[in-house]
């Protein structure tokens, strides 16, 4: 995993070399129109930022398409409900939207029973990490995706290396079952058992970490 890159992003995202997007003022005008009741303007803002929010924040943290879509929908409802309270702080619309989405995701993780790699406390820590001064949505996206991948790396580091390898090759790299079995030096049928035990070990590792969303 690209943890080095994550660190570089961490540095830049904390305000050292982040350049404001040139369309910031245009976005501000769009927000003002939306606050004035222009639904097409609000729709434009959501169309612009929603897909990024879904793929880099909600889906990786909630772990299922259905849950991520539900959270995105809830986020939009909250945006419509609370747009009048939005206060322009010179960083655009995305950081505000992302913060709302993280709160929605935290609520969903607290209620849910299904397995997930993140717990509510993980997302609270992400909010606590602070809002960057002038990060672009693109930088937020890269940062959020790297953070999610880092979480997977950390979890895999807590289980037996052979189990981690099985998960990495078969699940993460999506290599064929037979190829991974050969790499591990076992038959395909034996590999099925290894992978099953690897997943059980991963669940155990998650359960051992406070705040992780094991059901």
């Amino acid at each position, binding site marked *: 995993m690209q943890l080095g890159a994550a660190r570089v992003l961490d540095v830049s995202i904390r305000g050292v070399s982040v350049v404001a997007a040139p369309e910031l003022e245009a976005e501000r005008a769009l927000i003002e129109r939306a606050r004035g009741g222009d639904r097409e303007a609000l729709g434009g803002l959501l169309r612009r930022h*929603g897909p990024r929010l879904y793929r880099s924040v909600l*889906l990786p943290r909630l772990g299922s398409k259905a849950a991520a*879509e539900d959270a995105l*929908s809830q986020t939009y*409802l909250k945006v419509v409900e609370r747009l009048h309270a939005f206060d322009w702080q010179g960083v655009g619309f995305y950081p505000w939207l992302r913060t709302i989405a993280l709160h929605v995701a935290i609520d969903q993780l607290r209620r849910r029973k299904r397995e997930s790699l993140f717990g509510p406390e993980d997302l609270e820590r992400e909010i606590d990490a602070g809002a960057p001064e002038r990060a672009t949505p693109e930088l937020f996206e890269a940062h959020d995706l790297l953070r999610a991948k880092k979480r997977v790396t950390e979890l895999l580091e807590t289980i037996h290396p052979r189990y981690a390898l099985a998960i990495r090759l078969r699940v993460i790299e999506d290599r064929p079952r037979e190829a991974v079995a050969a790499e591990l030096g076992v038959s395909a049928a034996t590999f099925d058992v290894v992978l099953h035990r690897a997943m059980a070990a991963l669940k155990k590792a998650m359960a051992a970490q406070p705040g992780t969303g094991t059901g």
Partner: protein
Amino acid sequence: MMRDDDDTLPLDPSEEAELLEALNAVVRPDVLTESRHQRLIDLALQEPPAEPDEAELAEAEALRKALESRGEVPEASLARALRHAVLPASELESKGAAQRALTALPRSRVALIAVATTTVLSLAAALALVLSPAEQQAVPGLAESRSLSPLFAGAQVGSESERLDRIVSVRSRELRDNRFARWGVPR
């Protein structure tokens, strides 16, 4: 084949599938289709529903009664079919038992319980209003400056720097929460 210590918690197929989906969501996040996204936006932006007319109110009341096993309307059959499709039979049975117990209570007793509950809640709310400082009512939702000594009630744990870290952490969180509140982030 290897196992690390007592590594395997019970992991049923559905849990395993969820874990696999969660891993995939991180390493290969899917894109949201444009049409699906537009649907979510349309749902959020749709105009608020119109006020119900008399006929609609009557139909709603009939549906409510049918769902409480007191009458029958076509929508109630559909609602029950949905319920049976989603909830396991055992859960439905326990819900049904609770519902039957509630409907078995005399109406006068239900009304009495409702009045008593409302009264107690009203008194509690009034008491809370009286006891709350005026400033807190003036700026709702914002954390206020206060002593952090309750954090260290009882035996002192950790070194001086750990205690300072704790104070900084609490103060930072409150500052961020206040910033979010002023920013208009809904909770």
